[in-house]
């Protein structure tokens, strides 16, 4: 009897684990919308009186990963202060479920996070700034009229981001 129950128990546990993983991943996946040209344009121009910070990042980028907790903290702090803070992940689409979602989960991020929906990398790069090489992390700050105020390459300090956001909100 034990011989029969034991394999069934293993099968049940394995199935349960897979189901949980799929459900969790599926639930998280719903929060990762794709950002294409039209969505980016809407995001920048339809400000509704709010400033906007966009952070472009990847899990393969060490400075991005190091900077991310500050962005999560900024999102929590500024959500009620007329600033939208969003991130756009540029990992390969194959790595979203295996790398990006677990990373966001580990960061306890409730920040709006998109995946890159542009067909070509340079289309996304040029849409944000034609003079940008594509080096990440990149942080772009827009004021409430949708005008770009800052384009920052590389890891930024939390204090620097706060002061630049305050300037954008104050304009």
């Amino acid at each position, binding site marked *: 009897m034990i011989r029969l129950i034991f394999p069934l128990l293993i099968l049940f546990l394995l199935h349960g684990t897979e189901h949980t993983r799929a459900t969790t991943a599926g639930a998280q996946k719903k929060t990762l919308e794709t950002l294409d040209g039209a969505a980016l344009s809407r995001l920048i121009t339809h400000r509704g009186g709010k400033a906007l910070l966009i952070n472009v990042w*990847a899990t*393969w*980028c*060490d*400075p991005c990963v190091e900077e991310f907790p500050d962005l999560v903290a900024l999102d929590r702090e500024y959500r009620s202060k007329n600033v939208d803070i969003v991130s756009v992940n*540029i990992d*390969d689409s*194959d790595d979203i479920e295996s790398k990006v979602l677990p990373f966001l989960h580990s960061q306890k991020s409730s920040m709006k996070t998109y995946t890159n929906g542009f067909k*070509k*990398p*340079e289309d996304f*790069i*040029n849409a944000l700034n034609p003079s*940008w*090489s*594509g*080096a*990440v*992390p990149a942080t772009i700050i827009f004021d409430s009229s949708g005008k770009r105020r800052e384009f920052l*390459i*590389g890891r930024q300090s939390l204090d620097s981001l706060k002061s630049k956001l305050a300037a954008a909100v104050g304009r």
Partner: protein
Amino acid sequence: MKRFIGIPAILAAVVLGGFRPADTPRKVENFKLKDYNGVEHSLTDYKDAKGVVLMFIATRCPISNSYNERMVALDKDYRSKGIVFIGINANKQEPVDEVKQHAKDKGFEFTILKDEGNVIADKLGASVTPEIYLLNPGFEVLYHGRIDDSSKEAKVTSQDLRRALDEFLAGKVVSTPETKAFGCTIKRVTAS
């Protein structure tokens, strides 16, 4: 009257260095850097090559590292055609010993120069790894940008550097002289 206003304006643009016909390639000035063995190299050492490919690369950047095998293949495929590949490491946190070990581990046979203080990266405006400059024998930039359009080799749809090299070697104008891709920032001594 308009003619007299226009001429000084053009002259001013030329004097200030801001005027360059759109199709005139940018020229890279000669520079000297040491390789990971301490041997000094000048760009002019390669004036007899059919072309020079400068590659800003890194030891720790996953995107640059995803191109290691492709860089080896490019060097192998185009060396016999007279193209010289030169790697440049301008990352402040990647010491020369690490660059040497990395080159050995990855089987790089091309020269790798250490750009201490990111002087050459600053002069060229290189900001990401990997970042490519294809130069003709006059050291004019014929192509600037990425190696291809995906860090995952199986997903590549556009072999940008190979296409530029093939067009150049065939005596044609490089059809796409500028491309972009996401990559790691070059970690500079001074933040840019």
